[in-house]
């Protein structure tokens, strides 16, 4: 180690210059991006999904090779072609999807790649010792001998941070760390980050939650469509200004919930006492709810409190252990996804790339996946190719999907357009019930607005919608009625959303407050139908 001049507080510890990255499918993720971080600051990197934040950080961490550009760390140009290089230069990264091996222990995961050894053997005791010392030093507690698959999300994230710290990272990158955390966990994380900063670490914090950015960061850099829009001192800008930089215009998501018609329609979706145990934890506990024609029932809750499982159980993707599901008056309990769809149910899945589309198949093939055996595209045996093509054309123009033709592979579209393909398919079958799970996740503002519009339009024409979203603002602005889920249970029911305070809902989401289960059920179910 050679001695270096002590950097001043304003010295850039990291400079990424002119970074351009084009993915093999032609997507330009970063275009001539220049990004500078000072030593000892918390620097927020914000932008909409798809703006190129994650790609930029992957380039920094050696996970993606840039097509052009150079990186300077502590004033020296470095070549980072693998995470190994990045680690050597003191860069640590906490990924959005945790980089942990589930069947290994906390300690094993932390020391992985830099294991203590005794001769040729792995020194487990020493590893656990190291792990314990680190936890104590940084106040991030985790049980060293526990297996990753057995510990909660918050702990897993701590393990990720500890992993980076153990490797001596002084530049710590966190990619949307709060997306999966409960508010308390978020608070704990922020405390930890602040104390790390106090110890001299530099933190790059990727987020699109502007309140968090405002609360935590010293400076903020905004990316839009792969380009840098600007870098500001956080205390010099307002949330609105950042937001404008992100989307390029003023955006105020106005509450646009469907007009309550006063008398709501018949019950279209009814779930009674659903229970589900997965891997030993009860992920659904006596969930009861009903959705009527012409209304949106929103489910608020921190992610990971049973919403995904609930959607999967209702749509037939997972079996439930006990309980009943009725769709449009038909018993859907234990039926297959196909049978339930035939009852008039549509489903916008949370993860569109896994469930929503077959990315190598063409747009029209994706559009017919729920009606390939029905008229007009099929006579029950053979496909009518012309009808398929026509349907593709129609839906592309009706839903404004930007594509060169209906034959284009879905995977080559942008995220928003892929979601539009899903929406087009799910809405165009004139469903009686729609389960919309995170319908606007990861798509741009324009697309989000149109998704909201489709949801509202469908509802106003009589569809029953069950909306799940981690974005509290979204749920509150769209829903007619609202429930809150916490640890697999419905802990609150609000018959009227207008006038509710987000803070109030937050208390329920965190499990700090709950309504009596019987009361919840009674007030939701007990209303007179007419």
């Amino acid at each position: 180690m050679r001695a270096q001049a002590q950097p001043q507080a304003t010295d850039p510890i990291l400079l990424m210059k002119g970074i351009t990255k084009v993915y093999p499918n032609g997507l330009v993720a970063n275009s001539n991006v220049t990004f500078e971080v000072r030593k000892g600051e918390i620097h927020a990197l914000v932008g909409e999904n798809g703006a190129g934040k994650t790609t930029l950080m992957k380039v920094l961490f050696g996970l993606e090779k840039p097509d052009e550009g150079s990186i300077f760390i502590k004033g020296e140009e470095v070549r980072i072609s693998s995470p190994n290089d990045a680690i050597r230069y003191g860069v640590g990264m906490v990924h959005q999807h945790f980089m942990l091996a589930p069947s290994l222990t906390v300690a094993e995961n932390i020391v992985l790649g830099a294991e203590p050894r005794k001769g040729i053997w792995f020194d487990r005791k020493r590893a656990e010792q190291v792990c314990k010392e680190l936890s104590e030093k940084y106040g991030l507690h985790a049980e060293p001998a526990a297996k990753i698959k057995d510990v909660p999300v918050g702990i897993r994230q701590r393990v990720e941070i500890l992993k980076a710290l153990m490797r001596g990272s002084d530049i710590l990158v966190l990619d949307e760390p709060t997306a999966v955390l409960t508010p308390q966990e978020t608070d704990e994380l922020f405390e930890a980050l602040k104390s790390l900063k106090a110890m001299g670490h530099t933190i790059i914090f990727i987020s699109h939650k502007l309140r968090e950015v405002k609360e935590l960061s010293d400076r903020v850099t905004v990316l839009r469509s792969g380009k840098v829009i600007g870098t500001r001192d956080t205390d010099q800008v307002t949330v609105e200004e950042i937001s404008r930089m992100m989307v390029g215009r003023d955006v105020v998501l106005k509450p646009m919930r469907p007009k309550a018609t006063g008398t709501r329609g018949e019950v279209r979706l009814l779930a009674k006492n659903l229970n589900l145990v997965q891997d030993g934890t009860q992920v659904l506990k006596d969930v009861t709810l009903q959705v009527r024609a012409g209304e949106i029932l929103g489910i608020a809750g921190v992610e990971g409190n049973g919403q995904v499982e609930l959607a999967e159980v209702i749509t037939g993707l997972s079996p439930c252990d006990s309980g009943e599901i009725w769709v449009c008056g038909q018993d859907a309990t234990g039926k297959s996804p196909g049978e339930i769809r035939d009852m008039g149910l549509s489903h916008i899945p949370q993860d569109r790339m896994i469930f929503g589309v077959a990315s190598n198949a063409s747009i029209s093939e994706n559009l017919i996946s729920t009606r390939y055996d029905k008229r007009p595209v099929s006579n029950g045996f053979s496909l009518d190719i012309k009808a398929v093509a026509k349907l593709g054309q129609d839906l592309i123009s009706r839903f404004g999907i930007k594509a060169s033709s209906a034959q284009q592979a879905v995977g080559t579209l942008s995220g928003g357009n892929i979601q539009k393909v899903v929406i087009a398919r799910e809405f165009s079958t004139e469903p009686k019930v729609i389960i919309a799970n995170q319908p606007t996740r990861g798509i741009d503002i324009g697309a989000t607005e149109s998704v909201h519009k489709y949801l509202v339009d469908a509802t106003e024409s009589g569809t029953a919608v069950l909306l799940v979203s981690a974005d509290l603002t979204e749920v509150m602005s769209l829903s007619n009625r609202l429930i809150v889920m916490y640890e697999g249970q419905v802990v609150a029911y609000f018959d009227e959303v207008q006038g509710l305070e987000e803070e109030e809902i937050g208390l329920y989401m965190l499990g700090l407050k709950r309504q009596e289960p019987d009361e919840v059920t009674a007030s939701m179910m007990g209303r007179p139908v007419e």
Partner: protein
Amino acid sequence: MHPLLRAVFSASFAASILRVTTPVLFASLGAVVADLSGVVNIALEGMMLISALMGVIASAFTGSAWVGFLAGVASGILMGLVLGYFHLKLKTNVILAGIALNLLAAEGTVFLLYAVAHDKGVSSSLPSKVMPEIQIPIIKDIPVIGAIIGKQNVLTYLALIAVVMIYLFLYKTSFGLRLRAVGENPDAADSVGISVHKVQFIALALSGALAGMGGVHLSMGYVSWFSRNMTSGRGFIALAAKALGRNHPIGAFLASLLFGFTDALSNYMQSLRVPGEFIQMIPYVVTLVVLAVYSGRQLKSGRSSNE
């Protein structure tokens, strides 16, 4: 007693099980190592075949069985690296690459044999050596056990030792930890600076080395020459043994023993008047049944095994 029964209940039958098990055991350990690193090695059959031939050729030209052994192991390693190159670097589907290597080995060995020994069937014109049999001093004198494990080919002992070594390697060394991490979540390994490809290359090389030892056992332990296609599907049986053994070296050992047992039994039962075809179906049918039963249990417990 009926001579057949007498034979089946004899120590030499037990010894026969160990012998029959040896090549399958080597290969199934190779399958386990590759699989835990996240690569399905379907090329074991071809690796064994090529190693069997290279061992014979090298021992014939150097006059040393051990040089032959090393050459066999080295060619297994080379095959592993070739598989790794195509799968990891050129992104060939690993199963298709494995099939390609198997095809290459099946006929390529004949091609090579013809080029070296000018013979397309058997290498007996080459003065190749065999790996020695070893007697273990004290154990060989214990009545029954001595007859079973007291005197076996050195490679049979090596296979038994390999079970323990591979177990320790995978579960007690830091490289084993890395290997399992790579297999379970390559991104996790990558994010801490472990070169996933390097680990997988090493795993494939080790897998090839183990398959190579199995091949060498066939041509330089079991018999004393190479003959075309002499692996006769043992590499595929090894894959089944890996699957039955839940990707664990001890499990693979037990599964290989099961195959060894049914195979040895079919050899002994030939003299019963059951059509030979049925007896020889036993190992495969057993695999199918156990696979169904075992996978069924796995499915119930909520885990799926999509290879």
